[in-house]
């Protein structure tokens, strides 16, 4: 049975150009710029210094507070410097610069061969933490935190997010096709850690091959493959849970409050690699695509690889670029520099052609109501944008549920007046946060 959500939009998915392309291996870059900040939270602290020799998989930055994730060297070589270089999300950010020695030599003690079935949940969480695994769907939330819910939250269901609802991206799809066994293994591992009996894999119905392959692999296991309607933002956590279990995560709460954990396909492959082979998260599948990319590909890219290397691998550009985006075009971040690097959360790099960029002027809201029809959180996006324009950020929060917005961008996508409603909402959220901080510090 096909599961549906209310609201949402149907952008042209543009996946054709890469969905049949096998994951290629990128030639070893000469220099890697590995950011120490690759998860949500405090940046990690480098433990190497300029001049140190490092091996592939060696720890180069450790968690600052025990909650963040460590970072490992993606290849063997020499640390030339620790300095600020372009980060795809945080502007210029501290990076460990590693000059590759071309040998790509693993550190000793890695590449083990152990079975997850003999390990305990606590041991596996520790392994996941030590190997620096984060949510690879784009949010980069540390996986070990997600897998250690507070004692009073009983989790009974694991949902594997394989919707990949963003246009253009095919990295999760290729991971499912080429690493199906690893994905299933990762799912079983996480199910064991959380002690859940029931797992679901939610896949949009524009990926029939992945659905049939996963169904076949899940036979005899407690995992059910669920076919989802192809619709953006089906892959948003709350929408996944709604479509599969028909549960609504209460406002301001997390999936664990309805007994759910949601994990991305890529993260599960990384979990399987970490637990069985002790391989840290140092490379990931990246879709490099867009209308101006000569030869779009899916590529296994090391963390810290500059985008320029990826585009060179694709044969460069044809035609004029408008924007380069890390992530999908609906929620990704436009880049100001092609020197930005692949991080653990880089699911894809998409080029938007010059003529696709909409520079038309923003007009007043004509109350057509399209944003309301597509809002999956059932908010009044146009009202929020107008309140933000007027500076009534508090009203937006108290009367119009500002904080429930998940910033999926459907409202802007459909807006005939080209109002960047999401951006107005982000501004309101930021203004309110500033006000809260001011009140907090003022009352001390």
């Amino acid at each position, binding site marked *: 049975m096909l599961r549906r959500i209310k609201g949402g*939009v149907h*952008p042209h998915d543009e996946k054709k150009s890469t969905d049949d392309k096998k994951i290629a291996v990128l030639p070893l870059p000469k220099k890697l710029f590995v950011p120490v900040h690759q998860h949500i939270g405090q940046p990690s602290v480098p433990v190497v210094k300029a001049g140190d020799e490092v091996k592939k998989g060696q720890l180069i930055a450790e968690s600052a507070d025990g909650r963040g994730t460590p970072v490992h060297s993606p290849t063997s070589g020499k640390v030339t410097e620790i300095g600020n270089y372009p980060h795809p999300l945080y502007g210029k950010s501290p990076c460990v610069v590693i000059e590759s020695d071309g040998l790509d030599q693993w550190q000793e003690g890695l590449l083990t061969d152990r079975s997850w079935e003999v390990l305990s949940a606590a041991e596996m969480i520790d392994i996941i933490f030590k190997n620096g695994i984060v949510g690879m769907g784009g949010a980069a939330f540390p996986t070990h935190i997600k897998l250690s819910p507070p004692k009073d939250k009983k989790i009974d269901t694991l949902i594997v997010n394989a919707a990949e609802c963003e*246009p253009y991206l095919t990295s999760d799809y290729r991971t499912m096709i080429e690493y199906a066994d690893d994905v299933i293994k990762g799912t079983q591992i996480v199910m064991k850690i959380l002690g859940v009996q029931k797992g679901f894999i939610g896949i949009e119905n524009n990926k029939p091959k992945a659905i049939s392959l996963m169904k076949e692999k899940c036979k005899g296991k407690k995992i059910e493959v669920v076919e989802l309607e192809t619709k953006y933002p089906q892959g948003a956590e*709350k929408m996944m849970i*709604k479509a599969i279990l*028909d*549960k*609504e*995560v*209460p*406002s301001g*709460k997390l999936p664990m409050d*309805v007994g759910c954990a949601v994990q991305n396909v890529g993260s599960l492959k990384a979990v399987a690699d970490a637990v069985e082979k002790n391989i840290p998260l140092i490379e990931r599948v990246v879709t490099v695509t867009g209308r101006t990319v000569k030869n779009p590909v899916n590529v296994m890219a090391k963390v810290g690889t500059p985008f320029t290397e990826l585009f060179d691998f694709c044969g460069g550009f044809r035609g*004029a*670029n*408008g*924007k*380069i*985006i890390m*992530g999908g*075009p*609906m*929620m*990704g*971040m*436009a880049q*100001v*520099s*092609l020197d930005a690097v692949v991080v653990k959360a880089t699911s894809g790099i998409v080029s*938007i052609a010059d003529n696709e*960029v909409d*520079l*038309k002027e923003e*007009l*007043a809201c*004509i*109350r*057509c*109501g399209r944003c*309301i029809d597509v809002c*999956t*959180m*059932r*908010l*009044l996006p*146009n*009202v929020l944008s107008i309140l933000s324009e007027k500076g009534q950020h508090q009203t937006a929060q108290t009367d*119009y*549920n500002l904080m*429930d917005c998940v*910033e999926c961008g459907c409202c*802007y*996508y*459909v807006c*005939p007046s*080209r109002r*960047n409603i*999401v*951006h107005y909402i*982000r501004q309101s959220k930021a203004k309110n946060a500033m006000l809260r901080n001011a009140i907090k510090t003022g009352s001390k």
Partner: protein
Amino acid sequence: MTPDSSAETKINLYAPHIMSGDSTGRIIWTVAAAMLPALAYSSFIHGINTLLLILVCAASAVAAEILFQLVTGRRITAADGSAAVTGLVLAMTLPPLLPLWMAAAGSCFAVIAAKQLFGGLGRNLFNPALAGRALLFVIWSGSMRTAWNVTSEGNIPAEKLTSYGIIPQQALDVITSTPPGEGMYNAATVIPWFTESFTAFYDFMIGQNILKALFAGNSGGLTGEAAVILVLAGGVFLLWRGVITWHIPFSFLISLSFASYFFYSFTGSVSPGFITFIHIISGSVIPAAFFMAADPVTSPLTGRGMVIFGTGCGIFTFIIRSAGFYPEAAFWAILLMNAAVPLIDRITKPPVFGLNRSSK
């Protein structure tokens, strides 16, 4: 252009980066296009004054907007088409032979007082065209009630059409035989009067073959109701293009039908169904439902709100028609409901995901 930190950048860095490609300009010009067949046919039937009336309304609306924006130092936004559409909608609501300077005055009032003073496109509370018409009606009620095209030269094209068999002879009879100011210049206004002697009303309607006249020719009505069928086609076009949704027109027509049917049933009419039908196809109800009530700016935001709004329009139309005195009750009903939109929006806020319903 390659993204480059040094380049002076106009691009928006924040997601989303793609759009559906729809535009407000397209929506507004689609509305204009949907009105054109009905207006063109009207000009054809009523003659040159009507054509000029339509052009003057649109041109003076655009001129008024540009002038206002020049004087107040705002950005000129006439290209979005909203002023032109206001003018066209106003023309629909005027008698075909109204003096042109009155039409121009109404247009200027509509754009400046009812739209620009409220903050311009998207911020006006009342439908500008209907506000303009209301003003004209209050000031020049004489002309607004008598400038119908009944026996003038404007009927020559209608005669031609009849001789070619395009419109029926009966329709022409209605057009040419009804004197102005009395009798059937507008079906809506005669309905309350005829409820007292229903048989006469029934004979009158059937005898003159009013149905054919309303659909194919004209019933001596406003510019916008020369041919109800063309107005309806325009409305369906808007529905098909997704410019309006079904909520308002349908709830409007259905609630008016219900109110009329029950009223005439309970007051002992022989054929409540027939009178209800006349209610729907006459007195500008169809143009009002599709082109004026369904205006997104002055109607509620959510589907539920729109249904409340449309239902209110239908009921007020019936009340004003049967108890009141003004013709074109539908326009007054819409203005009344426009005032209620902020309230309707407030009580029909959608239930936020994960908030109003506890998780199952």
